[in-house]
């Protein structure tokens, strides 16, 4: 059967479409061929698939072949059944006949003969050559065609159709196509059935010894091929899948030793997409299919069908799995394969898959999910190829050019070394290359990490290559056959994870034959007698690879470092791009980092920085600090090279903010040093920098700082420094956010230089007076050299090493409260009662702080006019915590002697400087009283009042003001101003009354002393200096007659003194020359009072000490005496009214009698002598007056002369009314005695009923 393989393949190659046989009975084919061929390929066809379900296929390719054609004739029957798929699927019988007889006699028997073969699917095409204009010909042709139909069509199946060469043909072609399709469908069904039966038969015998895979393969592939020809790709693919499954089952069967293949030249290039890579005959060896070639062959067909089905995604997906699984198979047979054959194959396979699938792939056609997956697969393929490529590059000595990044290390460090049967040795002629390589190795300086970071380099190899290679060679020389022959055994030295999980099941290794001839050329040029040097290993690998790699491009990529990098970049970029497209950002970004590393090496810092930034952003965003710590120094270095100072500084900050364990302290100090160096030297412009991750801050635990409006303050905050070393900050400021309003209230507080120690620091910031409200922490800003930093993060105030060290949430706890403006202090006068005028008196000012400290307060005292501070005396200040209580209870008790509160009562003597008093410290938080000695001066003597014209002393005269201005607060920013009024007064108010004793012209002068102060006054003496016209009666010393001294006058009470005086002139007055117009009362008195309640002894006296040295005070008051007080010379009397009742409207005579009591010679009462002017005044509403209201009446000035003035009056209203009054305008009132001058009111009766008042209706 195997012999048929070659034939099978050639048939397959030559025949890729279905064949339709044409039985040209009437030699018509040459005429119609062209028109038939035009119909090909069939645009649309309906066929049955393997499960007999109708499937529409398009553009079904076919070929019309005459049955007489050699291709159809020369076939053996056996071939026919085996390669049945190439046999015609339909037979078209072309006939024409215009004569019925001819048909009956000649054509019909012939046709019967042709169609009797049941296996054919046939139908008759009757060609009518009759021209439509030729009626008879048309008719006869029609008759013949009818006959043909009768003969060959059955009810079940219409097998005839008519083709009018000259007529309209559209219907015919439709008919023809449907008939062809019917035939094809039937044939296909029958053949599928046949193949299936055959395959089933073979499958049943699968486990019999005689079973041959080759037969199965031909049948299966024939079926698949037939499906493919019929465009039933799905079915074809399924056949191939089954075939592969079956093959894999048989190929691993124990006892079936097979040649693996893959040792021929060119096998290193994957042929998994090239079905015709090798002829089938080469794949088969001794009735068995070589796995290496055959699996690729099968995959190639599968992928071809998938491409036809427009499923490139599936090619990539199946391809990736295929590469992985096939790579495992290659590992199994690695000892038989050339050096690194597996790696090379994987690289080429990945590359082929990528190119083929991406060229077939049309973006946007498939669902987004599939698209994503497709790109992911592409990325995987790129990635896989990249890793293998890196491995080869490492072997040939480009290890130094491979970035030792986590991705490369993770890929390579766990990837086992190739295990050739014998590790290649150096060819003899390659000594110069070895030297060159060694030179190169010596020249390469090991790359150091930036900032002097010391890290163990990440490995790119599972075990050290030098050791691995030499161990393998040593074991060879020692003849360790087991090691040579079975490279898959578990490593006995336990070095690294060499025994990979990809190692096959040990059971399957049994019996793997070893053929040295398969090892790569040049391996056995002499047993090695000494260990190879690394350069030799590289050169040896290079030579061995040269033997392995047949792909020139690949070899070129490995030939020089530049080419290697080019290819490396291509693969990396491809992987990264595809991963990005598939949204596998982590994979993509990591590979971006690899590209960045290459860019960096080549000085393309800009590109490198961009890519590194992406990587860093990813790791930082997701908090993978260990990975970030690996990349961030590279980014920093790029930024340094690009002179991107802001970026560089920011990277330094980020490096410092990483977990402390990730870097050594020395390294972290280096970061900081770099930061400080830049901040202080190179920056031209200030650079803003966010150090939130490094410097965090929080308020001091406890209640917030409370400030009064307008007060500055100092705010302490805890600042956590993440710097490894002390950090000097040139300035620090902190903004506070007002909680009441987000827009306003950012208030900066400043501190000058601060040194931050690593860890917790307390920074004190001075606070400008903020607006009232409560504030939370805002932003911490500051400056280090030219660097402006700011931090937004708030630490919770816990220790730095606790997990909740940092909190991104804004603290809601207020840190500062500023109260609304309120009274912070109150100044008031201690007393409101008057003090003694013209004496030095204490005035007390109560200073009452209202929940506020008055530390260092200064009181400015400014006295108003008429008041002065007696500077010769000190100012006293005493606490008065109990003042308010003691005041009402003990108004007279002396504060200093008050027993109970003395225990905590403080007092101090202060001096006044420039009108200012500085408060002592103790007075800052207690109520206190400042006693100021003041002296209110008044030059005028007080005037007494008489009983005739009583008048109270004017309060305003004794008012004085003291303007107070208290400066207080931390920086004397608060002021309190108040003007207090102090009331001064004389001790007494003097009033007098004089009474005629009617005895020898003496008068009694009563002087009433009314105390005006809140103190007990004691009068010790009093004397009166009388004015002119009065003399003392009696003793004549001016002392009162009816009183005994001392006379105590309690507050607000009165005391009286009576003097005996008489009218007369003082003898010897003329000698003095001066007249005394006013009398002066002198009073010597003493005062006992308390300054806390009112007037008190003057300050000077207090200091003078005891009672013995008492100094009495003197009070002088002016008294005005008038003479004579009772001496009228004229009297006016109201004569009684008539006894009858006064009635309204009734005339009443009102009479007054005027009488001269004394001679009035010296008085001018009228310009007309002997006449007196009178005037009657009456309310015109009440009275109607008849007669003269005003006039002169004759009256002699002699004593006793009298006259009656009578006026008629009519009362107008009833009730008590005031009667008319008589006045004498020209006579002084004091000369008239008119007591009483007339009745106050008279009673007027209502009028008697009288018609005269009636109003006519």
């Amino acid at each position, binding site marked *: 059967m195997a012999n048929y393989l070659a034939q099978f393949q050639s048939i397959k190659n030559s025949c890729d479409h279905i064949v339709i046989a044409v039985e040209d009975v009437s030699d018509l084919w040459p005429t119609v061929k062209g028109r038939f061929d035009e119909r090909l390929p069939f645009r649309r066809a309906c066929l049955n698939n393997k499960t007999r379900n109708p499937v529409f296929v398009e553009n079904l390719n076919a070929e019309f072949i005459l049955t007489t054609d050699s291709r159809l004739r020369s076939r053996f029957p056996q071939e026919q059944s085996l390669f049945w798929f190439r046999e015609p699927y339909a037979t078209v019988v072309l006939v024409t006949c215009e004569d019925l007889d001819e048909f009956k006699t000649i054509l019909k028997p012939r046709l019967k003969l042709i169609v009797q073969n049941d296996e054919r699917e046939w139908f008759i095409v009757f060609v009518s050559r009759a021209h439509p204009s030729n009626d008879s010909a048309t008719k006869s042709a029609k008759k013949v065609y009818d006959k043909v139909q009768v003969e060959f069509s059955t009810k079940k199946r219409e097998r005839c159709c008519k083709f009018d060469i000259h007529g309209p043909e559209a219907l015919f072609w439709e008919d023809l196509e449907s008939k062809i399709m019917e035939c094809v469908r039937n044939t296909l069904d029958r053949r599928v059935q046949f193949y299936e039966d055959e395959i089933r038969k073979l499958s049943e015998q699968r486990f019999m010894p005689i079973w041959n895979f080759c037969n199965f393969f031909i049948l299966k592939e024939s079926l698949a091929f037939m499906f493919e020809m019929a465009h039933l790709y799905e079915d074809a693919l399924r056949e191939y899948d089954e075939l592969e499954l079956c093959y894999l089952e048989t190929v691993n069967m124990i006892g079936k030793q097979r040649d693996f293949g893959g040792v021929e030249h060119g096998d290193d290039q994957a042929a998994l997409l090239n079905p015709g890579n090798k002829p089938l005959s080469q794949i088969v060896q001794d009735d068995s299919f070589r796995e290496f070639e055959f699996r690729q062959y099968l995959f190639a067909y599968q992928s071809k069908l998938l491409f036809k089905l427009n499923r490139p995604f599936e090619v990539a997906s199946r391809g990736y799995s295929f590469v992985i699984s096939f790579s495992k198979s290659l590992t199994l047979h690695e000892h038989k394969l050339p050096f690194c054959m597996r790696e090379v194959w994987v690289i080429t396979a990945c590359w082929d898959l990528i190119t083929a699938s991406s060229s077939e792939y049309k973006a946007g056609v498939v669902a987004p999910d599939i698209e994503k997956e497709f790109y992911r697969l592409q990325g995987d393929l790129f990635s896989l190829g990249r890793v293998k490529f890196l491995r080869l590059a490492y072997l040939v000595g480009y290890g130094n050019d491979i970035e030792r990044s986590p*991705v490369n*290390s993770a890929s390579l460090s766990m990837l086992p070394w190739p295990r050739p049967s014998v590790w290649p040795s150096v060819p003899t002629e390659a000594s110069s290359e070895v030297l060159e390589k060694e030179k190169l190795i010596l020249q390469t300086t090991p790359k150091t990490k930036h900032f002097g970071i010391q890290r163990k380099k990440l490995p790119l190899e599972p075990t050290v290559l030098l050791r691995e290679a030499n161990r393998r060679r040593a074991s060879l020389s020692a003849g360790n056959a087991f090691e040579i022959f079975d490279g898959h055994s578990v490593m006995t030295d336990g070095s690294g*994870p060499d025994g990979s999980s990809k190692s096959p099941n040990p059971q399957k290794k049994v019996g793997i034959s070893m053929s040295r001839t398969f090892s790569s050329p040049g391996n056995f040029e002499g047993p090695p007698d000494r260990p190879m040097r690394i350069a030799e290993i590289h050169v040896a690998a290079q030579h061995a690879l040269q033997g392995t790699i047949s792909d020139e491009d690949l070899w070129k990529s490995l030939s020089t470092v530049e080419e290697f990098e080019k290819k490396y970049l291509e693969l990396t970029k491809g992987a990264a791009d595809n991963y990005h497209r598939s949204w596998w950002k982590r*994979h993509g970004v990591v590979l971006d980092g690899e590209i960045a590393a290459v860019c960096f090496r080549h000085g393309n810092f800009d590109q490198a920085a961009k890519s590194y930034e992406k990587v860093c952003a990813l790791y930082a965003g997701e908090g*993978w600090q260990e990975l970030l710590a690996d990349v961030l120094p590279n980014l920093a270095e790029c930024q340094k090279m690009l002179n991107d100072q802001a970026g560089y500084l920011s990277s330094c900050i980020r490096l410092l903010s990483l977990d402390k364990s990730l870097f050594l302290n020395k390294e972290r100090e280096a970061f900081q040093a770099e930061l400080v160096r830049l901040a202080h030297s190179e920056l031209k412009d200030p650079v803003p920098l966010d150090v939130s991750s490094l410097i965090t801050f929080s308020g001091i635990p406890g209640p917030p700082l409370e400030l009064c409006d307008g007060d500055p303050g100092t705010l302490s905050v805890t600042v956590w420094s993440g710097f490894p070393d002390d950090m000097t900050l040139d300035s620090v400021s902190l903004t506070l956010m007002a909680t009441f309003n987000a827009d306003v209230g950012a208030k900066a507080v400043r501190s000058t230089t601060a040194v931050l120690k690593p860890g917790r620091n307390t920074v004190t910031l001075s606070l400008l007076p903020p607006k009232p409200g409560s504030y939370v922490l805002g932003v911490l800003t500051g400056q280090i050299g030219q660097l402006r930093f700011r931090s937004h993060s708030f630490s919770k105030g816990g220790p730095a090493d606790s997990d909740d060290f940092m909190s991104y949430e804004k603290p809601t706890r207020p840190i500062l409260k500023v109260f609304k403006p309120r009274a912070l202090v109150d100044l008031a006068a201690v007393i409101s009662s008057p003090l003694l005028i013209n004496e030095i008196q204490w005035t007390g000012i109560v200073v009452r702080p209202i929940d506020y400290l008055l530390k260092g307060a200064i009181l400015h005292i400014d006295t108003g006019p008429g008041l002065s501070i007696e500077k010769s005396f000190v100012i006293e200040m005493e606490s008065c915590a109990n003042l308010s209580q003691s005041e009402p209870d003990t108004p007279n008790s002396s504060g200093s002697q008050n027993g109970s509160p003395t225990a905590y009562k403080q007092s101090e003597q202060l001096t006044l400087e420039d009108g200012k008093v500085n408060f002592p410290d103790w007075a800052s938080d207690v109520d206190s009283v400042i006693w100021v000695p003041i002296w209110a001066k008044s030059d005028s003597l007080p005037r007494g009042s008489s009983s005739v014209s009583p008048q109270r002393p004017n309060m305003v005269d004794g008012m004085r003001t003291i303007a107070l201005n208290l400066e207080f607060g931390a920086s004397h920013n608060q002021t309190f101003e108040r003007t207090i009024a102090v009331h001064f007064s004389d001790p007494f108010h003097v009033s007098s009354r004089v009474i005629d004793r009617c005895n020898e012209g003496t008068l009694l002068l009563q002087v009433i002393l009314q105390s005006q102060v809140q103190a007990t006054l004691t009068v010790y003496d009093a004397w009166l200096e009388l004015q002119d016209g009065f003399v003392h009666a009696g003793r004549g010393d001016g002392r009162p007659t009816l009183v005994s001294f001392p006379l105590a006058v309690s507050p607000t009470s009165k005391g009286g003194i009576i003097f005996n005086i008489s009218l007369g002139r003082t003898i010897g007055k003329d000698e003095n020359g001066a007249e005394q117009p006013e009398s002066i009362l002198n009073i010597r008195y003493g005062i006992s009072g308390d300054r806390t309640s009112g007037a008190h002894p003057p300050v000077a006296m207090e200091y003078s000490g005891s009672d013995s040295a008492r100094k009495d005070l003197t009070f002088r008051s002016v008294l005005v005496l008038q003479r004579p007080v009772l001496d009228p010379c004229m009297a006016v009397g109201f004569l009684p009214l008539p006894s009858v009742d006064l009635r309204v409207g009734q005339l009443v005579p009102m009479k007054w009698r005027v009488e001269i009591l004394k001679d009035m010679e010296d008085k001018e009462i009228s310009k007309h002598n002997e006449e007196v002017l009178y005037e009657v005044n009456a309310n015109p509403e009440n009275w109607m007056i008849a007669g003269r209201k005003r006039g002169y009446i004759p009256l002699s000035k002699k004593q006793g002369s009298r006259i009656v003035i009578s006026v008629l009056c009519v009362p107008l209203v009833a009730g008590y009314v005031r009667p008319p009054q008589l006045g004498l305008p020209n006579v002084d009132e004091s000369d008239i005695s008119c007591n009483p001058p007339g009745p106050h009111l008279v009673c007027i009766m209502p009028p008697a009923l009288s018609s005269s008042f009636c109003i006519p209706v």
Partner: protein
Amino acid sequence: MAITASFIIVSRNDIPIYEAEVGSATKREDAAQLHQFVLHAALDIVQDLAWTTSAMFLKNIDRFNDLVVSVYVTAGHILFIY
């Protein structure tokens, strides 16, 4: 051959919140970083896979040569990867 396993808990926003190296084998110095890298890369796969299945335990979602990644996804999308 014992190699250390790495266990890591990743919060829903992909931030590692707990890491532990488990296993008795002698530690390779670079293993931690490699493990981190492998586990981080596996997040790409988890993000795709977690929403396609109702299972919480996703076994063998990724392998890096001999490192196998399995994930337990909690209801709150916190991952336990090892």
